[in-house]
């Protein structure tokens, strides 16, 4: 037990992204260094300055939900529910047999507790703005008097969390955190603290995002941070990020409860730290990330020299990767030479508010499997990114401690600390 409370473990994970539709598929790609970045299919991008994205391939909502329910969910909320079901099922929930149901699982939880002792905390940066974009196109482009009446409930940022609660019959604290590209990490961190403190027995937490709509892509193009080719984090010839979509959810609960019920434990969350740059709206800082990483280590009662691997924010922009390198070097000092650091965004793209959840999945799996996922599409070392970035090929290395970094526009930083679970359960 830590000084702050109980140990908190991950007993279920769900994920869908450009790398696959299941944890096994996604981990296989991360381990093999396969990128999911490809020409964007969702909309016509011929006029854009970029054509590549990391889209979820072949997702058909009607395979997961009844038709009427499909209409009531933006793609980002569909990803949230699908991955929450995966995580809950892996943790031992008995999911309803039907693909769509509001059938409550209260009373069917693996704990014998009711749904009111479970939290759902989701992160998203853009929520259902794809639906909003479609609604605005109906008004401004097609001259219709009003958008579809579901536009508001489809767009609301909490739609993913609410749909998960309805789907699984969870009636405890349910809410959404929107802190741009740190959303999911903030969500997992908050859930971790709530489980550790005993405020809830368990939590489903993570994030989801689905930004491939014409208006959103134009807005990203205007920011001039998206690469015209593929994202190459930490590489000297990097030209920006590649947008991604998807979702990932973790099922967290107290270690003693997980052990008592014989659950399969995938990993342990041991610390969470956050900070704000209070500086520039989009330019990253060194001090803010240092402060957040430091806070996560402090929360975990972990010395910096114990950390073996950092899943970097690593967006592939000139500015982020250099600044993050400086932050890591400042915090870890000489130990930075021993650190392995990679950006899995090189494979699953930058899924914005879901990014931290995809990367939490990658980090938990790296600890569990003893394989550190690489930074792919790396072609040329950059002196200002002089870290061991695990270029292109995964590394077999059994480690114990890892961090996962998320640094958002708006200068909001969130960092999670994980530990390999050695309990043998």
């Amino acid at each position, binding site marked *: 037990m830590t000084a702050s409370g109980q140990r908190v473990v991950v007993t279920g994970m769900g994920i869908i992204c450009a790398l696959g539709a299941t944890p096994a598929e996604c981990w296989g790609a991360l381990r093999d260094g396969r990128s999911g970045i490809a020409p964007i299919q969702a909309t016509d991008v011929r006029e854009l300055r970029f054509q590549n994205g990391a889209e979820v391939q072949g997702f058909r909502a009607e395979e997961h939900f009844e038709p009427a329910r499909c209409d*009531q969910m933006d793609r980002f909320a569909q990803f949230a529910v699908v991955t929450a079901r995966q995580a809950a099922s892996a943790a031992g929930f008995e999911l309803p047999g039907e693909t769509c149901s509001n059938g409550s699982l209260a009373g069917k939880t693996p704990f014998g507790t009711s749904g009111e002792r479970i939290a759902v905390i989701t992160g998203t940066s853009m929520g259902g703005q794809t639906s909003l974009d479609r609604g605005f196109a109906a008004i401004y482009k097609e001259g219709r008097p009003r958008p579809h*009446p*579901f536009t508001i409930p489809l767009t609301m940022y909490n739609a993913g969390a609410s749909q998960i609660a309805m789907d699984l019959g969870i009636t405890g604290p349910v809410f959404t955190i929107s802190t741009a590209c740190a959303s999911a990490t903030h969500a997992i961190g908050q859930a971790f603290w709530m489980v550790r403190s005993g405020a809830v027995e368990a939590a489903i937490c993570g994030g989801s995002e689905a930004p491939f709509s014409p208006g959103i892509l134009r807005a990203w193009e205007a920011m001039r941070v998206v690469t015209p080719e593929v994202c190459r984090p930490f590489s000297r010839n990097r030209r920006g990020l590649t947008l991604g979509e998807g979702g990932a959810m973790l099922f967290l609960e107290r270690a003693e409860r997980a052990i008592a019920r014989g659950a399969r434990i995938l990993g342990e969350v041991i610390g969470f730290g956050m900070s704000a740059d209070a500086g520039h709206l989009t330019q990253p800082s060194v001090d803010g990330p240092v402060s957040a990483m430091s806070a996560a280590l402090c929360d975990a009662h972990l010395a910096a020299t114990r950390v073996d691997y950092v899943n970097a924010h690593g967006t592939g922009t000139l500015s982020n990767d250099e600044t993050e390198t400086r932050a890591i070097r400042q915090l870890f000092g000489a130990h930075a030479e021993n650190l392995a650091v990679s950006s899995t965004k090189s494979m699953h793209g930058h899924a914005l508010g879901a990014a931290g959840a995809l990367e939490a999945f990658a980090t938990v799996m790296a600890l569990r499997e003893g394989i550190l996922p690489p930074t792919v599409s790396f072609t040329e070392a950059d002196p200002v990114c002089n870290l061991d970035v695990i270029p292109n090929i995964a590394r077999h290395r059994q480690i114990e401690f890892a961090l996962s970094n998320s640094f958002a526009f708006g200068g909001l930083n969130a960092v999670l600390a994980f530990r390999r679970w050695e309990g043998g359960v």
Partner: protein
Amino acid sequence: MDEALTAKVIAEIAAVKRIPVESITINSTFEELAMDSLDAMNLLFALEEQLGVSIPDEAANSIKDVRSTVAGVRRLLAEKSGAQS
């Protein structure tokens, strides 16, 4: 006219609820058809688009069955053609 309008409303309800047209009659209530508030909103949006009318919020709240929907839409269409003539 009424029969055509009734058929139109029934067809839209069938599309919204994804149920067969044959399962709906002029006497069906929304409750019998398991039409919840979101379904009703969806139906009114479809009727507005199809028929070129604007259904006021007060009228929308009072519609609970097929017959009152047809009657309400008929009245709006009459007002519209009256205004145009």
